[in-house]
């Protein structure tokens, strides 16, 4: 039995579906149903969050392996089982998902006025899929959750999104699906090669070098779209702009992490040779992403689009970190993923706040909000600073570690990667100045209200997290140090093994 004494991860994964059943059983007129759906969803997600805190408390940080493991027979004759478990790499993402979901529910309390019941159902299903994806320890179970995410997200963008929602939803769906199906073939090939779909076995399986390249690119097709890496990032700005606020939050906060998580879970540990061979290729794409999308962000006139492009740039830093495959780089990438999960989610919430009031995301439509909305201006400033990596905020630690890791690999990589921090400061400060400072010129902005109690409740945990991660990062890095060390060692050992053999063979 695992450390919790009961199937904790399964409970955290599937409990939201109980909420779905409760919401479905509500009868009455539309207002009653909506109110009930909101409260049920909020309570369900809060209970899930509290349950998931057991992971935070009971997780053994010294252990680099999988914990809270649980298994159930599913297709036992064919080597596929329902297996759940977390290690240092995935545990914090489970927590990130369970923490962001109640925030999203709270953020869409008033913003979603139509078909509230369906919205809450979609969100709860989405939570199940996200948590399941991070906790799955079987490749096929992983794939089912990974793909399953598409269904609720497609509906959330398409039903509750903006004017071009249909285009954005279909583009999101097809882009991600096209990548994922190739990954499915890769998983099948690995299954056939190794004879198991158990990730614990696969992590230490020796996959022939000739296969590794193909598998690497099949996984790359899936994860690069999801991260997203340049040049397959074009679905992201569309999806972000059209999605409702809560959809953007979860998209930036969790779904983008799925791609990077996939790289860490599959590509790097299972395919060490291909990873070493194609790391320069990934670096190139990442550096282009960092510089190019930062410049694109600078030119945006739509707030959400600006933050969407900044996400692509930040995720570029993450992929650099992952493929340095040294302790600093990978730890930095993980930290950057977490901090980006908090900070970009919060930035989308900031946009959502003014969008709910004025119904516009045009930067030029605003200005001088500091006068009327001091609390909002404070929150927005904190997250902008965190986004551009000010020391003392969450954004700094991750970028710094990644750059240290990159420096160990190549000077130019670190230099070009660090351009992202400079450009990041440029576009965030430019955004902040145009929205918050200056004089209020428009009449409707003169009567704009500051954050309500509910909105403060939404932002407060994120503010605390952003500062906590910046001031005392070890409470987070402590979780993944052991796992990252083990992974990096394993990777180096695998590379050493092949080079020694090569050394023996070639005189």
């Amino acid at each position, binding site marked *: 039995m695992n450390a919790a004494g009961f199937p904790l991860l399964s409970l955290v994964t599937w409990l939201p579906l109980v909420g779905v059943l409760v919401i479905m059983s509500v009868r009455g007129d539309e207002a009653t149903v909506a109110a009930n759906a909101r409260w049920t969803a909020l309570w369900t997600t809060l209970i899930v969050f509290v349950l998931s805190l057991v992971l935070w408390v009971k997780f053994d940080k010294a252990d680099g392996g999988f914990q809270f493991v649980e298994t159930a*027979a*599913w*297709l*036992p*004759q*064919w080597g596929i089982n329902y297996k759940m478990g977390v290690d240092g790499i995935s545990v914090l993402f489970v927590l990130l998902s369970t923490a962001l979901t109640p925030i999203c529910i709270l953020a869409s309390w008033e913003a979603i006025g139509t078909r509230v019941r*369906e919205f809450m159902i979609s969100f709860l299903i989405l939570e199940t899929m996200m948590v399941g994806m991070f906790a799955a320890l079987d490749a*096929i179970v992983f*794939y*089912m*959750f990974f*793909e*399953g995410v*598409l*269904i609720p997200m*497609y*509906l959330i963008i*398409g*039903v509750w999104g903006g004017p071009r*929602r*249909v285009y954005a*939803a*279909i583009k999101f*769906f*097809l882009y991600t*699906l*096209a990548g994922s*199906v*190739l990954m*499915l*073939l890769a998983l*099948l*090939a690995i*299954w*056939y090669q190794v004879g198991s779909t158990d990730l614990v076995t696969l992590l230490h399986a020796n996959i022939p070098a000739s296969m590794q390249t193909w598998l690497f690119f099949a996984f790359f097709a899936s994860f690069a779209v999801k991260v997203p890496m340049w040049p397959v990032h074009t679905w992201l700005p569309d999806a972000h702009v059209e999605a409702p606020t809560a959809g953007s939050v979860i998209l930036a906060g969790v779904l983008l992490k799925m791609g990077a998580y996939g790289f860490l879970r599959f590509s790097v540990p299972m395919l060490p040779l291909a990873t070493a061979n194609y790391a320069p290729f990934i670096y190139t794409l990442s550096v282009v992403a960092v510089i190019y999308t930062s410049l694109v962000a600078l030119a945006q006139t739509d707030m959400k689009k600006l933050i969407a492009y900044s996400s692509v740039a930040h995720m570029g830093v993450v992929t650099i970190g992952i493929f340095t495959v040294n302790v600093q780089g990978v730890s930095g990438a993980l930290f950057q993923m977490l901090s980006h999960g908090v900070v970009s989610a919060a930035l989308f919430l900031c946009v959502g706040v003014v969008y709910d009031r004025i119904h516009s995301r045009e930067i030029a439509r605003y200005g001088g909000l500091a006068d009327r909305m001091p609390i909002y201006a404070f929150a927005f400033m904190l997250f902008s600073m965190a986004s551009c990596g000010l020391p003392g905020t969450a954004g700094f630690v991750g970028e710094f570690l990644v750059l240290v890791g990159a420096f160990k690999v190549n000077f130019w990589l670190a230099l070009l990667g660090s351009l992202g921090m400079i450009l990041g400061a440029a576009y965030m400060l430019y955004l902040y100045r145009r929205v918050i400072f200056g004089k209020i010129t428009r009449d409707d902005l003169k009567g704009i209200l500051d954050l309500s109690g509910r909105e403060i409740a939404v932002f407060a945990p994120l503010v605390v997290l952003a500062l906590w991660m910046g001031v005392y990062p070890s409470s987070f890095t402590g979780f993944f140090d052991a796992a990252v060390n083990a992974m990096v060692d394993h990777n180096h050992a695998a590379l050493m093994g092949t080079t020694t053999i090569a050394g023996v063979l070639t005189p």
Partner: protein
Amino acid sequence: MNWTTALPELVLACCGMGILIFGVLNKRDTFLASSMLTVGAFLLAGLLVLMAPMGVGFNGQFTNDAFSLFVKLLILAAAALSVVVSLDYNEHTNLKRFEFPVLILYATTGMLLMASSTNMMTMYVGVELMSLSIYVLAAFARDELRSSEAGLKYFVLGALASGLMLYGVSLAYGFSGSMDFLKLAAALSDPAKASPGLIVGLVFIVAGLAFKISAVPFHMWTPDVYEGAPTPVTAFMATAPKVAAMALLLRVMATPFGHLLAQWQQLIVLVSVASMLLGAFAAIAQKNIKRLMAYSSIGHIGYALIGLAAGTPNGVRGVLFYLFTYVFMNIGTFACIIAMRRKGRAVEGIADLAGLSRTDPMMAFWLAVFMFSMAGIPPFGGFLGKYFVFTAAVQQGMWTLAVIGVLTSVVGAFYYIRIIKVMYFDTPAEAFDVRPGSLSFVAAASGLFTTLFFFFPAPVVAAAEAAAKVLFH
């Protein structure tokens, strides 16, 4: 002579005659009663299939094994559900004649025969019994031009295909000296000695069967016939006959021609790729949902054929598993399509589904489930089906086939999620009439099945595996 092996077929045929007499002698309207009796006969036959002894009967012309058991139960389930979805439609469109369920019953008898046939003769008789009944069914709405056209078209092309198949059978017989599957297999045990005439015969037989499963390039009839036939008939045609013909194709390829794998493999690969491509691309522009389903079924047959192309027990297992999931999501989809009716008139446009999630949330939900499932999105049943056929292709190293397969499934996903888009994102059109209980039942039952299947796939996979192993002993 062990005639008890064929007990289910015999009983079913006798039930058919009984229902026919009952209908003729009764002066009152007996559509509902005959339909219920037919469903009862299917249940009885299902029971008998489970009880019938395994083994060979009628001098090797007829075989009961794990393969035929799996296929027959699936066919009977599909046929019974088709009768249920026809109840209300026929009531409303003046087709409530007792011959309707009887024809379905006889078609089903033919299919059961096909599932068990181990001789070219039984095979042909089974195929013809099935086809002739369906020709009549397709033209059942005889006062309607489209239906008569569909029936005629299907008959003319179907007769041609039967002729091709028969010619292939005669060639195979002429060059090997037997019609028995096992004797053919023995005669062909050395592929190097197989004469060109036999290969030509093989190609003709494949062509005839490919017509029945509507695989490209023998798919031309499908969209027109699907569109013109009364919708319950389309539902029936899209499920049970596909299973039967595919099962027959599996058996013919694996047993008598098993040694000629290298010869027919390229043929099946070609047909599979062409079907997947056509199914994916031609469906995009469709505006009529029945035509869309026709192209969708062509695509699905392409995926199922991947398993056959692999030519291994795992491949056949994949095909059977695929058909299993396919039947339930298809019959559910058709239950939803039949429920598309405004002021008593059936409508078939995709645009008519606009905003269904507001006007009829339950139906929209189930249809969305079926569409996601057909697109192969986990956790629905359709994903598992695709999973098992792709596994087989990957194991055989057929990468081109697998990659084309997954990429066309992405193209296919476009038109499936477009239907969901119409239902969920568009502004509502006028609401449909109230759904009758029978259709809600079929939609909900197959919907629940498709949704929850991932919980317990193991018994079905095991049954499919047992069935597949029989063919490769």
